[in-house]
């Protein structure tokens, strides 16, 4: 059985074939996020959560270009990053619901997750200098490994980002900044919070920058493979900017965008395009992932509450 499916439709944003495992992952993340929102609506999530609906293809595309020894700094909108790296929906959902088997015992919750080679914090921008420090370590001890920090467009408001880029550029650190530019930060459109451009910000430090608009996982890989390699082999930082639509609310029920705007954003959803390009495989995969997520939800909801304490510490 081939793991790659040929595209049916000519033209359109999906120009490459699809790997089944990519589609699996794309749809796992989509349905996971949808389930989280549903659980939230049902009052089963304590606190807050930020879903990555519309942005799933970024971690999915990068997944095969990343190595096990790379260190990833995710952010508040990090479920997709986690699932693409670890494929562990139960551990993540348990974390969000505070159930046994939670990857961080329910202590960190949705936006504070740490697992080998992966870390999220809840303070915007804070991770970038930390990622620079990790890059320095990797450069010396695991040459060729990357320190990757995911940030949103709005996070360019934070001074910490610039302090880190300056050091990373000066010391030629293998830091890859992945910017998920979804045109908005909480409620603020990018035009209202970011002057100039992200490309310009990268250039300010002499860093390479590429902007990618495609929702096509295969195409993205073609475009950015060389960029990652350059950061790895030259040990210098780079910035990758992905233009993506944020299709869900910022966290929960707090979307103040106009319906027309959302409609037009939905036209950019990888989901539609993949559905159109690979209708059969898509339907079959979606069904499978919907069920898989439902099973995970059922199973995790049935678990006892997580425990935390010196005893429980791993």
């Amino acid at each position, binding site marked *: 059985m081939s793991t790659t499916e040929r595209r049916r439709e000519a033209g359109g944003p999906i120009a490459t074939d699809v790997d089944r495992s990519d589609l699996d992952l794309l749809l796992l993340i989509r349905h996971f996020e949808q389930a989280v929102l549903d659980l939230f609506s049902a009052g089963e999530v304590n606190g807050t959560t930020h879903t990555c609906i519309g942005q799933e293809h970024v971690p999915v595309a990068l997944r095969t270009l990343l190595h096990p020894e790379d260190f990833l700094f995710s952010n508040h909108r990090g479920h997709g990053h986690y699932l693409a790296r670890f494929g562990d929906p139960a551990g993540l959902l348990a974390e969000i619901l*505070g159930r046994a088997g939670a990857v961080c015992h329910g202590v960190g*919750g*949705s936006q504070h997750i740490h697992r080998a080679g992966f870390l999220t914090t809840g303070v*915007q921008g804070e991770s970038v200098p930390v990622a620079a420090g990790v890059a320095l370590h990797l450069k010396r001890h695991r040459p060729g490994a990357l320190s990757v920090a995911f940030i949103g467009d709005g996070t*360019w*408001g934070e001074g910490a980002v610039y302090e880190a880029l300056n050091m990373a550029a000066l010391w030629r650190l293998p830091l890859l900044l992945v910017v998920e530019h979804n045109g908005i*930060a*909480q409620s603020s459109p990018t035009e209202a*919070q970011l002057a100039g451009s992200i490309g310009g910000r990268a250039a300010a430090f002499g860093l390479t920058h590429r902007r990618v608009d495609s929702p096509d996982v295969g195409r993205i890989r073609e475009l950015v493979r060389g960029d990652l390699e350059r950061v790895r082999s030259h040990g210098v930082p780079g910035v990758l900017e992905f233009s993506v639509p944020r299709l869900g609310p910022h966290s929960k029920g707090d979307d103040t965008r106009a319906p027309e705007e959302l409609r037009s954003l939905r036209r950019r959803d990888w989901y539609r395009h993949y559905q159109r390009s690979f209708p059969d495989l898509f339907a079959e995969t979606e069904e499978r992932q919907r069920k898989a997520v439902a099973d995970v939800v059922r199973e995790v909801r049935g678990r006892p*509450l997580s425990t935390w304490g010196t005893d429980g510490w791993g």
Partner: protein
Amino acid sequence: MAGADRIAENLNDALHHVFADYRDAYLVGEDVSDPYGGAFKVSRGLSTKYPDRVLSTPISENGLLGLCNGLALCGNRVIAEVMFGDFALLAFDQICNFAAKSVSMYGHAKAMNLVIRCPVGGHRGYGPTHSQAVHKHFLGIPDLSLFEVTPFHDNRTLLDELVNLGTPALLFEEKRLYGSRRFTGGRIDELFTFEFAGDHAVSSPGEPGPADVVLIAPGGATFTALAAARSLLLEAEIVCRVITPVRLYPFDIRPLEDLLGEARLVVVAEEGTEGGGWGAEVAHRVYERLWPRLRHRVVLVGARPSIVPTARHLEHEVLLQPERIVAATREALRG
């Protein structure tokens, strides 16, 4: 009381009044513009009415406080909204080294009318970086006052005072308060009434005479303290008064001296973690004024010295609960 407004609305109303009263009022913060109106909706309606003076900033806590400092330096009345108090730590330099110091460090008294609103505290499951009670870190900065919204004080009066203080102030807003109704008309419930002593709200059960215990608890800890006081009364016949200050620092102990001096025990409860906190400062003031009259050492309770976990059941363990106050009080009275 049923008739009173919710505290978020009362705060919102207070902000509207500041803008109506002062043409040099500014509100600066992240996502404060309509229709969003700030993460906790406290700033709703302001940007629509006063588009020029409500600034939704990029995610730049230090930068936005710096901007506020510049506006304050020019004589404006400036209100900053920090989305979560935890992020005020990013702006520590602008708050401490610029806002507070500028009042005196140029040798001349320089008025800085700057109010920094900080939603604080947990009980919301927002997790370790969005749930701190950061008060303690800002204690003891010359020319920086700390205030906290309470269920008793009208924020209209309070905010008007703060924008005219001449020195910068942090205004903490415990998140549980937003959705709660204000206590008005001197009555809290069938058991407790309240009145004011100086700036402090004093809640008492109907018992005459001195209280056994005086419990000092600001902001949202008021609710916790009232629940504890209720248990103590109903379960152990311990009469407990609850004092809710609106200005946390400098703490004005004078109006409380008699109340405190008559009690068998003084307890200070705070949302922040135990250790190095506000409670120790209040205790110090109590000893300083009341040493000969104190019958027991001042007891401090707060959150456990831990980060605030996200999961509800874990968060509950860490944060201050009425049971902790009750246990500490009873143990002290026994011992």
